Every structure is written in C-alpha cells, then in structure tokens.
C-alpha cells in the first residue's frame, strides 16, 4: 500500500478507536480495531510491510494512550510480521481460521503487556486482567476482523488491494 494510505489509516485509528467504537463497548470491552487492521495489512502486504506498519501503529498508540513508548510498538511489529508470514499460506481470506489467528495474536499481545506490567510495575492482577479484559477483547477483536474480512472479500476489495500491493518478503 502507498505511504499516504498508511498515513491516513494511522491518523484515523486513534479517534476511531477512542470515540466511535464506544457504542460497541460490552462491559467496558472494545474490539481492537488497530490490531484487526494490522492483521489484514500483514496478510495482504507481507511480513516486511506488516512489521513496519505494526511498529508505526504501535508507537502511535503508545503515545496516544500515555503508555510506555515502544511497548505496543514491539508487540504490534511482531503481530504485523507474523500476520505477513501467515499471509503466504492464506488462500481464502473469508475463512474463519483467520479470525482465530487474529484472536490468538490479540491474546498473546495482551498477555505480553500484562506480564511486562506485572514485572516492572508491580502487582497488576494478571489473572483478573486475563479473564476480565484480555480474553474477551481477543474474542471480540477476532469477530471484528472476521466481519471486516467478510465485507472486504464481498466487495472484491482484497483482490484489488492484492493486485496493487506486492507481497514483500523479509
């Protein structure tokens, strides 16, 4: 994808996630739009572009959410990279297995950050966080990714994007 497309996606991401996704919140849990988009970018564009997009997205989210700058940068970079590597083997973007992978990535990211917070910032309630936030959000994000991929596939949007975007390997 072109840099200006990434630029617009990144700029829209924080306000979309922070404001417009509030009505989708269930018991305070919102799906992670950024992660879902990154997963799709990785699948389409490959590991190199996925990792770069992930790092940029993560850094921006770290700055926007007053978190430790670089922490989400690392996790999103790894998610983008993994999604890109997975993209080599994905033949059907509408397959539900994609949303399972997305949910797993969301879960692993949440666990990584929770462990980091537990180690460096004291007694964050790990299991409470896992059961009350990380797992439901992973499930919800997987559903969102599935819905976006279904929509994009129906409109042949993915095929058009794949034609324009060469799958760049590491």
């Amino acid at each position, binding site marked *: 994808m072109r840099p200006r497309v990434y630029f617009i996606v990144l700029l829209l991401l*924080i*306000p979309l996630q922070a404001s417009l996704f509030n009505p989708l919140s269930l018991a305070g849990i919102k799906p992670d739009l950024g992660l879902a988009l990154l997963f799709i970018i990785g699948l389409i564009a490959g590991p*190199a572009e996925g990792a770069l997009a992930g790092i940029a997205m993560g850094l921006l989210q770290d700055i926007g959410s007053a*978190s430790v700058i670089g*922490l989400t940068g*690392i996790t999103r*970079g790894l998610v983008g990279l993994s999604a890109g590597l997975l993209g080599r083997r994905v033949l059907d973007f509408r397959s539900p297995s994609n949303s399972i992978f997305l949910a797993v990535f969301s879960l692993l990211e949440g666990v990584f950050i929770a462990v980091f917070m537990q180690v460096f910032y*004291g007694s964050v309630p790990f299991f409470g966080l896992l059961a009350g*936030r990380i797992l439901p959000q992973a499930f919800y994000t997987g559903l969102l990714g599935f819905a976006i991929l279904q929509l994009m596939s129906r409109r042949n949007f993915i095929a058009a994007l794949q034609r324009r975007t060469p799958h760049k*390997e590491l």
Partner: protein
Amino acid sequence: MTRLPAQRKKLFFFLSLFVLLFWLVTVQVRHGRFTFMEKPVLAVAGLFERVITWPFKTTVSVGKQYVFFVGAQRENRQLRDENDRLLLENAVMNEILLENERLRDALEFKRLHPPASIMTQVIGKESSPASSTITINKGSRDGISAGMAVISAEGVVGRIQTVLPGTAKIMLLIDPGSTLAVRVQRNREDGLLEGKLRHCALKYVSYYADIQEGDLLVTSGLDGVFPKGLAVGTVVKVTKHEANAFQTVVAKPAVTLSRLEEALVLTQ
C-alpha cells in the same frame, strides 16, 4: 568488502528496529515515561476525533431531542408544579443559610469556599493492559493545566496528564502511573493509593492497621492536589501475610469509570 544480500540487509534493519524499541522501553522503565511526543500526536488525533464524531453525535442528539419532545408537554406541567414547591423550599433554605452564616461568623469559623471547577465532557476512552486514560473536550483555552484534579458526582476520577488548547487527557485513578494520598474514613488511617488497571491498591499499610472490607477511602488532602474528604473508593479485599510488614489492600473506585460521561476539573 563483500556486499550483504538484500534479504540479510532487511533482516538486519528489522532486528535493529526491534532492538531500538527494546532500548526505548528499558530507558522508560528506569527513568519514567517519555511525554515529549504526546502533544503533537494528540493535537492531530483530537482534530480528527472532533471531525469524525461530529456527525455521529449530532444524529444521536437530534434523535434524543425528538424522543424527549413527545413527553415534553406532560413533563412541563409536572415541572411547573415542582417549581412552585421548590420556590417555597428555596425561601426556607435561604433563611437557614443566612442563619448558618451568622452563626459561623459568630464562632469565627473559616468560611469554606467550594473549589472553582470546569464541567467537561468525555470524548474518548483509551484502555489497554498498560494504561487507562480518557480525553475531555476542554483544554488550556478553558484554564485547564496539567496536574489538576478531576472528579465527578460520585468521587475522584483522576488527574490531568496532558493539556492541549481544546482537549486534555486524564490519567484515571486505575492507571498504573496514578498515585493518590487517601485516608480510611472510619479510623483516619493514611495510605497511598496506586492504580492497578482493574482496581486500586492501598500501599504501605502497616500489618497492624485496622482496615476492613467495606471501608470507605477518601482523599486526605496531603498531596496538595485533591481537596480533603472526596470519596475515592471502597476496600474490597484485605490480605495479611505474617512474613510481610505491610498488608495488601485492594479497593474499588467510587466512580464507575467505564460509564463516565461528564467530569469536573478542579481549577483551584
């Protein structure tokens, strides 16, 4: 010198990038979070936020107005009756207030001035396993500055972290970076309340301190940010270990932060 193949160069580039990010995180763990990039990013995001949410909020507002209009006439009649009753009550209350002031003056009590405040609306909520913040629709143009206390009708919300001309970011009470001087209302035991994302924890409470589940925590005023006596939360769990000099006290915030729509910023 032999040239590295393109694939290795790319691999080296990405490895360096990740190493750099790890270094950034390590530096912040040791010396605190970097905040220098917050203002420009939040300024741009805030602008987009307003543009994106404007049509949505306008539609919701028009819909609500229509729904309310249907029952407005009946409600109007009820309100008129209530107004008459309140006018009468108000006259009695004024008398009591005047009498109270006279008595205070007589006893040379210091008059309590309610702190100056600004009513704001929550326009964004950000929550991750690493932080918990909200964005409000007022900023430095309205007299808000970093460090100010933020409350709601139920109690303490948090404090202002970053301020832009039209918006401000609040670090919530449950954010891991948040600390607050509190007091147990029942026995006046002091403590330091730290954010733990889903709840808060009272730190450095002596093993022998009498803390019980259900105890109400209020601000002690010792931090110089929050006025004394505001509700902060309720103790939900107390754990004592004989090997530890301190007890572990878990508290639930008084304010339902996930459903917060308005917040009051204390400017004094």
